[in-house]
């Protein structure tokens, strides 16, 4: 079984341990504009990355980014590669069993993108066709369990999945709708034919299971950032330029 030996005394990711270290290790994506990516000058940037920087700032420590793919987010926490995951991590019941999620900071649902020439607007159109997903995403889980007659192509990274779509390897691609909005803005030949699928879901920071210390701190932090309008600002800076006019901040961020 998995040893989850993160009791407070030996927890290398507790708030005090992080402060003592002077750095927090945060998992982010590296190839998912506009959430976590690297600009042409080699700087990490994006919505998640800005949040990560803010958290580090408020903890008064330096931030160290660890680039992950969707399917290593859990293991990165489990194996102490990172203290915190801010990589568009959707809260699901299965994941809750293996990591601890803090309060959510984004709303999301599954969307399906396809070429404008052959748009997919209904899941039934996908029967007997191929659909691209990213390993370890909610979209993959959703289609794997609900639609056995759609054949899935499972890629390791965002780059690979979008390239495969562009190369016409499948009829459509399913992923969190928020990226898809951003992606079609840059790729006008494609459309998000199915905007939402399945239940509404939330994206939240995640810590290693049992890391109460950091979890509590992050929860407080999210509430604080919500109050002082950080997410709105983050949205305007990092997401808005990538989304079309049919998306508003309220579709994405959580304002309670």
């Amino acid at each position, binding site marked *: 079984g998995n040893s989850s*030996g993160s009791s407070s005394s030996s927890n290398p990711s507790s708030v005090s341990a992080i402060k003592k270290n002077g750095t927090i290790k945060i998992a982010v994506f*590296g190839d998912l504009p506009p959430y976590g990516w*690297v*600009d*042409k000058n080699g700087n990490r940037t994006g919505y998640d990355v800005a949040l990560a920087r803010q958290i580090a700032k408020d903890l008064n420590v330096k931030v160290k980014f660890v680039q992950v793919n969707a399917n290593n987010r859990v293991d990165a926490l*489990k194996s102490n*590669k990172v203290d915190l995951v801010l990589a568009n991590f959707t809260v699901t019941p299965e994941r809750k069993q293996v990591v601890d999620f803090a309060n959510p900071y984004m709303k999301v649902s599954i969307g399906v993108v396809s070429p404008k020439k052959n748009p997919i607007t209904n899941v039934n159109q996908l029967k007997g066709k191929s659909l691209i997903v990213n390993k370890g995403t909610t979209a993959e889980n959703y289609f794997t369990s609900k639609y056995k007659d759609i054949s899935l192509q499972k890629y390791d990274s965002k*780059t690979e999945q979008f390239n495969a779509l562009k190369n016409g390897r499948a009829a459509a691609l399913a992923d969190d709708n928020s990226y898809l909005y951003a992606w079609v803005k*840059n790729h006008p030949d494609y459309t998000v034919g199915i905007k939402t699928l399945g239940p509404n879901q939330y994206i939240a920071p995640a810590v290693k299971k049992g890391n109460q210390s950091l979890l509590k701190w992050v929860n407080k932090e999210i509430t604080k950032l919500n109050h002082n309008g950080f997410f709105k600002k983050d949205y305007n800076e990092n997401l808005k330029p990538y989304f079309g006019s049919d998306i508003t901040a309220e579709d994405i961020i959580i304002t309670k």
Partner: protein
Amino acid sequence: MGHSGINIFFEGANFIRLLGGLYVSAKIALLAILFGGVLGIVLGVLRTLHNPLLRMILRLYLEFFRIVPTIVLLFLFYYILPQSFNINFKADTVGTLVFSLWMAAEMSDIVRGALISVPRHQVEAGKAIGLNPFQLYRYILLPQSVHLMIPATINLMTRIIKTTSLLLLISVVDVINVGQQIIEANSHRYQDGAFWVYGFIFILYFILCYPLSRLARRLERRGKVGANG
């Protein structure tokens, strides 16, 4: 192709970043070759000793690294070590460790092969003048077998360098990872970025490995002539 895709390299710091990624791969390869090489020589010598238990253990070590694909090794060390044994390393360190251990395993076989190919009567001649086992290795076996080891070792080095391409899968920001970042970040302007970036990385690896394999081949040929002449 609208405007030429090759310009993707001249956007911002893209070109330098790719080279930076290459440096990460090359550094890991180099460290692995260094550590693994030294360890491999020691293990290779140990494998020629007549200790059945030691031999079997080292043989198992070699076979494990031979049978398990490198991708799987990387995942094993990256995830299982910390979770099961509470040892935690950064991705780069895990990469270096896995490649070092792999290098050592293969190197031990090269060293062993070279040592046992020293003619038996050379060893016997050494024994006949009263050399002890250590002296046999020091004066007879090692000096006479290095020339056999070198070409195979250089070939192994190119394999290590080539295989660093898998580091991407444990989140090391290597040349391919940087390449993917670039493809994604520029995907709206450069629809054919994948062609150019992957093509370029292909050439980069070739430039790294080709001179080495040429050298290995030359040494091998010279070794053959030397042995017969």
